[in-house]
């Protein structure tokens, strides 16, 4: 029983946050100018056009270097996909792994660029919501769907934020997990954060405290491995 990843979409249909744990098929970096908001996920932001795209350890493109990132908020990528190592030095809150992506992931990738993937996810949940509403005739929302390889759960808040979580197909409903992410880390580090711009159209809601507390919450679940 495992949880693969989490997307948070705001009411403007943009992906505001992304966090993954066990994906074996990593998403590619977003295309430059592809509409991905800054501050969603440092590892998936588009590389600046001038930077060499080859070696992941070069000073400009290394995830340790936050000077090049356009986000105004310090973001830290916790090296998802590998066993989490406890942070050894205090700042930043999470230790960034050297060379970001695991070596097995091809640089070009067989997957979609992240911004396209986020749009696809949003499109799927929007279409399914409309379909279920039309079919039932009542104001009914789509809850989850299951394929042979994963299960996708949706939790929607009254303010229009949509939490989408992908888990393994045998998982029980994760609505409660997403609800606790909403009432815990989200309210604490995003809503109540005076520096986080929530309803903007250019900025995501990634910040190191939010990321760390979401990570802690999800890894502490009994359903997580």
């Amino acid at each position, binding site marked *: 029983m495992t949880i693969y*990843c989490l997307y948070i979409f705001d009411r403007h249909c943009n992906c505001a946050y992304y966090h993954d744990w066990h994906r074996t098929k990593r998403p590619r970096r977003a295309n430059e100018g592809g509409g991905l908001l800054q501050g969603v996920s440092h590892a998936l932001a588009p590389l600046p056009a001038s930077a060499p795209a080859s070696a992941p350890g070069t000073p400009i493109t290394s995830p340790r270097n936050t000077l090049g990132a356009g986000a105004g908020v310090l973001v830290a990528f916790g090296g998802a996909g590998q066993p989490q190592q406890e942070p050894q030095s205090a700042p930043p809150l999470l230790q960034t792994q050297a060379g970001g992506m695991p070596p097995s992931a091809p640089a070009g990738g067989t997957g*979609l660029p992240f911004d396209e993937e986020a749009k696809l996810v949003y499109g799927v949940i929007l279409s399914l919501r409309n379909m*279920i509403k039309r079919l039932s005739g009542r104001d009914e929302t789509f809850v*989850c*769907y299951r394929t042979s390889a994963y299960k996708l759960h949706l939790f929607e808040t009254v303010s229009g934020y949509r939490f989408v979580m992908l888990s393994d197909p045998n998982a029980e409903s994760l609505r409660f997990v997403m609800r606790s992410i909403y009432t815990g880390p989200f309210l604490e580090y995003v809503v109540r954060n005076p520096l986080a711009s929530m309803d903007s159209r250019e900025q995501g809601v990634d910040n190191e405290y939010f990321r760390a507390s979401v990570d802690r919450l999800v890894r502490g679940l009994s359903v997580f491995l």
Partner: protein
Amino acid sequence: MAIFGLWVINKAGGLVYQRDFAEGLAQLSSNEYLVLAGTLHGIHAITSRLSPIGASSGAHVIEGETFKMTILLTATGTKFVLLTSIAETSAGAVLQRVYEAYADAVMKNPFHTPEMPIRSEGFDARIVALIGTGHT
């Protein structure tokens, strides 16, 4: 525990058979069913692309709050969709038998054009015998 409806969608995404059983879902016009079937066909294709771990089938079960849709995709691309209440456990088995009835009464019918809407009394009779009124 109830079965609300059955759809059969051809491999191009067009609805070829639709039948309602128990009450519980909205009554829609045949045009709206056609649109929804096409939407479902597209969504099914996209769900296989969104997998976080590589290859995946399309969606098998899509759940709302009071009903769920179980989808059987055959090797030829035909989709059988059963709309049931959440508690219904036999949806997979029912769809298998619907597929068998389809193979017998529709595919072996020399007067039926493949991928066209199904107008077959034999198929209707077998479906009624299988599902009845939809209440279990």
